[in-house]
């Protein structure tokens, strides 16, 4: 189990005379070449459960047949999706008509007294669309199927054939609350493909923005989690802090979500203003932490709810907050650069809602500390004019978890773009957290993971 490589991504690229399936693990990359006329890929889903979505996606995108899988259902091709394989190069349609309705077969548990509860795609709250199908035995959840890809916007396809620098405008809007992470991942690729040096000052500025994005995400969640357990006052308090931090992000980056901020120059900012803001924020978070820790009825709901143990976390290769709350030490920031500026890998061990809540608070403190160290002078770097053709990959720790991005450049244009949002992996492990709980706990558990729909659907 120790040397079990972690599956990071599995996706296809269309070459002139074959389909190339690239599988990225934490320590190796594997390539398989498939015949273009009748592409068949051997499934690895019996070893890696999370390979399932990757493979179903390839099936829908390219029409690659998956052999030896237990799940041959469509992923992106919903009930009225036309019979097309949009990621094939030959597909160039800008408009398609709907096809006949064909129902989707949900994974369900059958038995006497077992019933299903469908939820979605439109939810009661203000949230993105997605579908959850519960198999229930009274209150007890027997199974949950997560079905997404309602926000599928064909972003991978729409980036093909455009210049690398022109892709920034779309990529920053793949998943709004991870915008800075996406921009950073792309910037990394821009640096690799050009001959410019990633100046430390610039890098520090980018990392500073990324940590602010993370703080906002965590602050939002530490308000919503108690709120979903029936304690609204926490949300009122924490949502003020996240609003303050958004206003702060706008002061530094020019935009409340940091759109367009990962650039070749840093904005001028006032170090004192940042210092003051961080001090006040830190103090308020500490107060909040003391307050919440002191409410036993909340911890009755948080503790032992939605548990993902370490063994399963490893088996499913989950990433980010979910992984670290279960005691898995994965964080893309775990490197010398970040450590130099005060990064300390935070983790918890139990893997329940309470662990994820506590982890988020710990990470806020660490992010505040790092931002203090990232403060530096303003800088302007010349924008590169040309890029070398080739394949590039980058990893960034978004506020949800490890984000993986792949770009292949050909004749100076994007030939293939692929991004694996941390949510794409974690969504597939969500059902594991439901096994011992009742349906009323679902919003709480879901919120404690706070995954992105838009990022995973693309």
């Amino acid at each position: 189990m120790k040397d079990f490589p972690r599956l990071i991504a599995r996706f296809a690229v269309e070459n002139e005379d074959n389909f190339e399936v690239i599988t990225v693990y934490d320590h190796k990359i594997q390539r398989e070449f498939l015949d273009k006329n009748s592409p068949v890929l051997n499934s690895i889903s019996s070893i890696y459960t999370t390979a399932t979505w990757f493979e179903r996606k390839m099936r829908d995108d390219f029409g690659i047949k998956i052999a030896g899988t237990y799940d041959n259902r469509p992923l992106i091709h919903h009930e009225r999706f036309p019979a097309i394989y949009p990621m094939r190069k030959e597909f160039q349609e800008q408009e398609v008509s709907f096809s006949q309705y064909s129902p989707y077969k949900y994974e369900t548990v059958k038995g006497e007294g077992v019933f299903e509860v469908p939820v979605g795609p439109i939810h009661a709250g203000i949230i993105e669309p997605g579908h959850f199908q519960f198999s229930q035995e009274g209150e007890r959840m027997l199974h949950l199927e997560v079905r997404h890809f309602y926000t599928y916007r064909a972003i991978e396809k729409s980036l093909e054939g455009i210049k690398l620098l022109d892709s920034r405008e779309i990529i920053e809007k793949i998943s709004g609350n991870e915008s800075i992470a996406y921009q950073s991942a792309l910037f990394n690729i821009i640096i690799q493909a050009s001959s410019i040096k990633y100046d430390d000052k610039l890098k520090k500025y980018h990392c500073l923005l990324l940590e602010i994005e993370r703080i906002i995400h965590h602050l939002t969640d530490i308000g919503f989690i108690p709120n979903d357990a029936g304690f609204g006052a926490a949300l009122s308090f924490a949502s003020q802090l996240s609003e303050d931090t958004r206003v702060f992000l706008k002061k530094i980056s020019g935009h409340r979500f940091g759109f367009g901020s990962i650039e070749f120059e840093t904005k001028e900012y006032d170090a004192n203003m940042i210092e003051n803001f961080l001090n006040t924020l830190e103090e308020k978070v500490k107060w909040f932490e003391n307050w919440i820790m002191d409410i036993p009825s909340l911890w009755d709901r948080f503790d032992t709810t939605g548990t993902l143990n370490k063994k399963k976390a490893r088996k499913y290769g989950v990433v980010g907050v979910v992984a670290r709350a279960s005691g898995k030490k994965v964080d893309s920031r775990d490197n010398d650069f970040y450590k130099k500026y005060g990064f300390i890998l935070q983790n918890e061990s139990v893997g329940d809602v309470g662990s994820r809540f506590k982890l988020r608070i710990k990470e806020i403190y660490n992010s505040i500390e790092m931002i203090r160290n990232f403060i530096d002078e303003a800088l302007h770097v010349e924008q590169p004019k040309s890029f070398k053709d080739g394949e590039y990959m980058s990893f960034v720790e978004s506020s949800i978890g490890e984000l993986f991005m792949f770009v292949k450049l050909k004749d100076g244009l994007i030939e293939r773009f692929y991004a694996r949002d941390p949510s794409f992996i974690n969504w597939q492990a969500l059902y594991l957290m439901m096994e011992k709980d009742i349906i009323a706990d679902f919003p709480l558990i879901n919120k404690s993971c706070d995954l992105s729909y838009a990022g995973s659907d693309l």
Partner: protein
Amino acid sequence: MIKFWKKRLQNPISTKNLEFNDELKEIKKELKSVIAKRFAGSLAIRMVSSGSCNACEAECNALSNPYYDLERLGIHFVASPRHADAMLLSGVVSINMYHHVLDAYHQMPQPAHIITLGDCPLLEGTFKQNFAIKGAKSLNLPISHHIQGCPPEPKEIIKGLLEFIKNPKDF
């Protein structure tokens, strides 16, 4: 709990320091009286996200924080389209959401209004029409009002709602 009440007594009002507070106060005053007149005291909104990047939803969630606190003006987000006067539609209307948006609309009591939120639904921003992006116009439903921005800030959403309330087309 004691700690909490102590803090409440020390800092009773949280909206004090925001720079746009005065402006907001004006909007709020105006909004309240129009809603009372036109929507019998409350405007019920059903938010439908049809393929957005989630920043537009985040800004709508921010409307409930104590700085904006939309509910105290009589505007509230409801959990079902059957309770709604207006649908606040964000996102590009993706191929997989198209029919669900229509379904939600047809569940609303008439007269039902659609307010489009952000640059996405009218395809005015980054995302342009493609085989997976249909746009709100393809729904062939009357759109009563549009709030632009990417994403529109909470303050702009409040202003936009005010404009809608003052002058909803097809009213």
